């Protein structure tokens, strides 16, 4: 805060200097008082912001600790369940599903009515779907539903 700039603009004429010197001193005092008030206000506002920041920090720290504790509790349980599933259940389920697919290949009603409905849930145990063909279907010789071929063609 450089005060001389302010007073240089309002320098009175030299003939009235003794009268206005007293007024200038008053102005300086008022300005100093206002400056001090502003400084106090500034400190007060910053103190309030600090309190707010402290509260926000405390809240976020508690939330962070809470979720970290939750993760630390969940992690071993999920890891144990996953390992147990992959070691014990997954191979047996895979074998069972492979045999079910073999069975379903011979029993289309089972395939369409039951097995296909579980494709979204048990997608990992289903073979990748064959691409859809837009051309006319080719009749297989093993398909009993196919129309008989005309001999000679």
């Amino acid at each position, binding site marked *: 805060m450089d005060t001389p700039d302010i007073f240089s603009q309002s320098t009175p004429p030299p003939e009235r200097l003794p009268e206005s010197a007293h007024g200038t001193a008053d102005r300086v005092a008022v300005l100093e008082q206002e400056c001090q008030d502003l400084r106090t206000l500034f400190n007060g506002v910053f103190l309030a912001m600090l309190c707010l920041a402290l509260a926000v920090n405390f809240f976020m720290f508690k939330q*962070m600790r809470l979720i970290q504790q939750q993760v630390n509790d969940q992690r071993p349980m999920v890891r144990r369940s996953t390992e147990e599933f992959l070691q014990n259940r997954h191979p047996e389920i895979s074998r069972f599903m492979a045999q079910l697919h073999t069975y379903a290949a011979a029993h289309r009603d089972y395939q369409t009515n039951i097995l296909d409905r579980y494709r979204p849930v048990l997608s990992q145990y289903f073979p990748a779907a064959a691409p859809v063909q837009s051309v006319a279907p080719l009749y297989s010789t093993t398909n009993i539903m196919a129309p008989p071929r005309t001999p000679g063609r």
Partner: protein
Amino acid sequence: MFRNNLLGSLLVLLLLVFGLLSCLWAVRYYFSVVEAQRLQGQYQKLQATMAGMQSLVNETIEYSRRNPDVDPLLFQYNLKPRAGTNVPPNTPGTPRPR
């Protein structure tokens, strides 16, 4: 200004430190939430697989009443009790007693 106002400088500095700490907690909170969601999703997928498998077995047992030719498969995995035995049925994936 800050040279004349030591208290103000200190307050600004403290506010800056608290702001940085808030950012740190926010970042750690974000990554913890992401990991919690990942773990939860993994566990739910596991549960859904088991529930789906159980439902499939139940429907297959129901189907076997109309088509007994699926029975050998169910007997093999001890999913359906053989006639004349009191052995409780198993679910696929449950370790059988050896």
